[in-house]
């Protein structure tokens, strides 16, 4: 008979732990439920749940809106969404306050005073269309459609803005990407095809994180945060973060290594040096799947010694050596980067240097490794307007031929220089007067100048620093009131989704695709100008139906009707809310697909194909794959289907085609009292449109400047002291936050605060004349207990661009920090247009046609000069 003693009982317990853990559990804590239902706590009536997609920031999380008595009362994550798995961040939870914002613009407004004077007249949509159409007509009649410019900040319209501009025949389409992540994209695209990576955090063992605050703010914050946590808990993952600041991600990491700003690339190259020197690379992968040999790589990396990198970055030699060995010998491993390496004048080089680490260690497209992004596309309603015949200088400036994502933040200087004339300017969800370098001193200066911008139409539901300078404001609607298609490569499981109206537009707000259609119809009422045919849809919903009606798989599932019901269509199976995994119909987990580049071409693909001596498979004038060991693989989405460690196109313009590092010229000889200013985002704010959201404003409403303890002691500064931060273009006066959590040569100021034209809560006009809402019944607005709205740093950050990727060098600004001077007062933001112009001109010297280009690239001495290449249109979006 079985007999348990205390000793055998405990021993058996220890020995059977794994089995106990693996046994299926049916009992669950209710708070672990992913949600999906919500009950009114008073009436106990279940609230109506409508699936949609969040659009507070650009991660595009799946969301559910709970509607009660016609009002959105709560938002939460959509438990069917395979990437975001029932979770929304703080910003997403607060999203409904956009719709109900008392400062929201609900009617078309026409300026009646001077620009920026704040005097408006409410006009009807028809009056607005007539005014705008007359201006457009004038430009079109004169035959210069490129004089119509549209610049967007956040465009999730699914092609509507491009359709509008192409209908008008204008190529002057600008975006915000150069202030966002363009040099990350340009560092990656020519190397392996896509513009972003998909680290398999959940299954990795080791992460080298360069300058990404993924647990708070980076692409794709919500889904990636979940996987980072899974990796830590389920895979015992180690994470090492290089960052100038102890972000919450750095704090979560096993190691935070403060690195001198802009030198991540040097560290990455030195890590590569150690890996190659010690023969820790994956030679098979390099030889088969890149366009260089192991020996070429070893020879090239010899120059990047740990001693060299240590001197530049401040990271000790032994740390570099140790981490290189750890990274190369721990499998699987991945890197992840965001703005830290990329937002510098040579950010593209930095990004490339970082991505070389998973490439040389063969961690590409492996479980737990550095994977290609998985996205899905959708259709465009037919017919589509043709692309404009004449290129736009502003959209593709000659000096930046490689910047496929544009260099939009330099546009004010180019318009001022007369490089391209603009007669009608549209902005869409874009507030460059706040978000761009130079802020009001640059973009405000442009918009106030009616000679340079004779007519400015702002498409926005909110007043902002940009909108207040417009001639006409058209009341677009916030995201809970609109139709839009969505797809983001935010996990290893691709998905398609929609944003659908959960309430009707308030006031006379209209969706983008609706009012642009009406405007085009105004311009071309009878179709004789050939415009109307591109805008033949019956409604915004009808437009989306056309975008989704022919997607294989989705079509059979019900197309748009499926999406209206579920919000999201995952291509594989569906999310099991019990496990958070993707399951098939029988409940079994569907594993993510890895090794996409090793997919074999079919016999049909190979029919008529030819394989050259290097294994490249050619068909119809294109390389469609790579043959290796007798097998025909699809390879990587590059021109030769290989990872291009050597980017020949860069060499054409005198840039180093191999991984390299260039130090910021103005960081070379910094004086002892000079520091580098960097900015960052907080987890409850995006760039320019959250400071007036009451829940988020209460959590974070001010942004003191982070300053190192040692540095502050030298300057005699304590936490709370008023300080002056002075750059080459101006100064701000703010408060200090003294902390150990920052590199001693860095001062860091978060963005999102310090508004002067957006929302009374963001400006704290609640406490000023005519700024009050009564809001007697609102416990939040009755309790605005803070009186500090923060100070915006962008005024004093000069506009400089990466000569390759076009990125703004956000983290390059040299400043002097001192105690506030007599006469300084908190919130001073003083900047000078002429000084900004000088800095812009200085930056242009580093372009491939500039006089500093050769000096920065002595290794490219054999380059034949700018006249040897012709400007070519580049890709990107």
């Amino acid at each position, binding site marked *: 008979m079985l007999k348990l003693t205390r000793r055998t009982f405990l021993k058996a317990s220890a020995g059977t732990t794994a089995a106990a853990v693996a046994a299926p559990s049916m009992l669950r804590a209710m708070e672990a439920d992913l949600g999906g239902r919500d009950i009114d706590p008073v009436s106990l009536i279940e609230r109506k749940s409508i699936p949609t997609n969040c659009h507070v920031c650009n991660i595009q999380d799946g969301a559910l809106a709970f509607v009660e008595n016609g009002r959105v009362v709560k938002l939460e994550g959509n438990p069917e969404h395979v990437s975001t798995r029932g979770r929304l961040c703080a910003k997403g939870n607060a999203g409904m306050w956009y719709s109900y914002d008392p400062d929201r613009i609900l009617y078309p407004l026409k300026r009646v005073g001077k620009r920026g004077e704040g005097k408006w007249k409410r006009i009807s949509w028809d009056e607005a269309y007539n005014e705008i159409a007359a201006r457009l007509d004038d430009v079109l009649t004169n035959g210069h459609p490129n004089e119509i410019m549209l610049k967007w900040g956040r465009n999730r319209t699914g092609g509507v803005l491009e359709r509008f501009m192409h209908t008008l025949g204008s190529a002057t389409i600008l975006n915000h990407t150069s202030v966002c992540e363009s040099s990350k994209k340009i560092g990656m695209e020519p190397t392996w095809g896509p513009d972003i990576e998909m680290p398999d955090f959940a299954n990795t063992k080791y992460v080298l994180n360069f300058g990404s605050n993924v647990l708070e703010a980076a692409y794709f914050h919500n889904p990636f945060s979940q996987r980072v946590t899974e990796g830590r808990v389920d895979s015992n993952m180690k994470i090492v973060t290089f960052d100038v600041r102890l972000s919450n991600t750095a704090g979560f990491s096993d190691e935070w290594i403060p690195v001198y700003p802009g030198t991540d690339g040097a560290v990455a190259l030195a890590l590569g040096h150690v890996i190659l020197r010690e023969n820790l690379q994956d030679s098979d992968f390099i030889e088969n799947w890149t366009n260089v040999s192991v020996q070429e790589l070893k020879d090239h990396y010899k120059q990047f010694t740990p001693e060299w990198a240590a001197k530049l970055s401040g990271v000790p030699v032994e740390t570099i050596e140790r981490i290189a060995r750890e990274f190369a010998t721990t499998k699987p491993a991945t890197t992840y980067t965001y703005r830290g390496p990329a937002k510098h004048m040579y950010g593209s080089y930095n990004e490339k240097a970082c991505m070389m680490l998973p490439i040389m260690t063969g961690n590409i497209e492996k479980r737990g490794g550095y994977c290609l992004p998985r996205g899905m596309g959708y259709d465009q309603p037919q017919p589509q307007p043709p692309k404009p015949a004449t290129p736009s200088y502003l959209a593709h400036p000659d000096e930046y031929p490689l910047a496929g994502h544009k260099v939009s933040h330099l546009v004010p200087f180019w318009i001022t220089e007369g490089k391209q004339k603009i007669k009608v300017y549209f902005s869409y969800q874009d507030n460059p007067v706040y978000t761009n370098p130079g802020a009001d001193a640059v973009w*405000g200066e442009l918009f106030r100048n009616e000679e340079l911008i004779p007519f400015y139409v702002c498409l926005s539901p909110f007043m902002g620093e940009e909108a207040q300078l417009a001639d006409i404001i058209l009341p677009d609607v916030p995201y809970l009131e609109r139709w839009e298609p969505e797809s983001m490569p935010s996990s290893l499981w691709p998905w398609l989704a929609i944003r659908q109206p959960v309430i009707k537009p308030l006031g006379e707000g209209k969706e983008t695709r609706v009012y642009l259609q009406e405007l085009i119809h105004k311009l071309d009422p009878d179709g004789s100008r050939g415009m109307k045919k591109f805008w033949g849809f019956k409604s915004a919903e009808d437009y989306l139906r056309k975008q989704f009606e022919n997607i294989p798989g989705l079509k059979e599932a019900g197309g748009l009707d499926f999406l209206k019901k579920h919000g999201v269509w995952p291509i594989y199976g569906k999310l099991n809310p019990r496990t958070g995994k993707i399951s098939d119909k029988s409940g079994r987990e569907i594993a993510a697909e890895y090794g996409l580049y090793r997919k074999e071409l079919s016999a049909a693909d190979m029919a008529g194909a030819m394989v050259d001596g290097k294994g490249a498979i050619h068909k119809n004038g294109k390389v469609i794959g790579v043959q290796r060991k007798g097998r025909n693989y699809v390879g990587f989405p590059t021109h030769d289907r290989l990872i291009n460690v050597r980017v020949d196109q860069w060499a054409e313009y005198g840039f180093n085609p191999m991984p390299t590092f260039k130090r910021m010229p103005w960081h070379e000889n910094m004086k002892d009292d000079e520091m580098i200013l960097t900015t960052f985002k907080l987890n409850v704010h995006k760039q320019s449109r959250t400071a007036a959201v009451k829940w988020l404003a209460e959590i974070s409403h001010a942004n003191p400047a982070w300053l190192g303890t040692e540095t502050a002691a030298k300057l005699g500064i304590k936490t709370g002291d008023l300080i002056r931060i002075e750059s080459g273009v101006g100064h701000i006066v703010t408060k200090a936050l003294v902390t150990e959590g920052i590199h001693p040569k860095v001062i860091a100021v978060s963005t999102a605060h310090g508004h002067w034209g957006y929302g009374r809560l963001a400006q704290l006009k609640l406490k000023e004349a005519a700024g*009050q809402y*009564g809001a007697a019944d609102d416990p939040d607005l009755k309790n605005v207990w803070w009186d500090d709205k923060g100070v915006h740093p962008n005024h004093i950050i000069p506009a400089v661009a990466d000569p390759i990727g076009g990125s703004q060098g956000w983290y390059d600004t040299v400043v002097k920090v001192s105690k506030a001077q007599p006469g300084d007062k908190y919130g001073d933001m003083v900047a000078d247009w002429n000084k900004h112009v000088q800095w812009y001109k200085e930056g242009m010297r580093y372009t491939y046609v500039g006089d500093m280009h050769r000096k920065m690239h002595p290794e490219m001495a054999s380059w034949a000069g700018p006249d040897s290449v012709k400007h070519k249109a580049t890709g990107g979006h």
Partner: protein
Amino acid sequence: MSDLFTIPLEIVRQEAVAPAACTAEEYAARAHYYRLLAGAFIEEPGRDYLAALRTPESLEALAELGVTFDNDFIDPTPDELQETLACEYTVLFASSGGFPPVESVRLKGGFQQDPCFAAREFYAKEGFSVGAGRFQVFDDQLGVELQFIAALMDRIVIAMQRGDNQEQRRLEKSVKRFWAQHLGRWVRGYAALVERAASHSFYRETAMLLDAFAAFELELLGLDVTDEDQGRMELPPLAGADEPMRCGA
């Protein structure tokens, strides 16, 4: 919890008090004032409305009440006045940084909150719905709420003419309840805010009239409703409010 439960008990008690008796003529006159005031706030004043208001008889009648417009209302041509007031209306009521005449905004801090739906429900029970004028309006917009009371008073007059006492009493109770649940809670404080913030005498004087009329009506209805809108008490001076918003020292 609905707004009904937030009404002070004193008001509910006063529901039992019989309203001051009014004649049909008086109800018609009160409805007239509601409409007059609604015309100022529901949207930009129209040409006909302004022309009627600027007749000597009208100005004289208003002056007797203490409403005296400045020359900015008297002197301009009809077109000029309409244009000026359209701009003033937009800045005060229909663009960012202003103070929309909307109960949800005043009491809840956002558009289309509970008062909007409660007002809509109230209208529906009486057989009304809100359409659009030149522009879409919220159900709890000041002008709409005033027009609703005017419409109820029209019906009271009809009921009185028919001798339908029961319907008259029911409608009078509805008027009283709507004031207790909606207008009474915000309109006086809001009127004081407009009076102080307006730069044109038209809005200053009509806001003053609204404030006085609201007090008059509450007294007539026998209601003692607390003005929850804080505009009356806390409005600071308006220095610099119309200066362009600029950054920098």
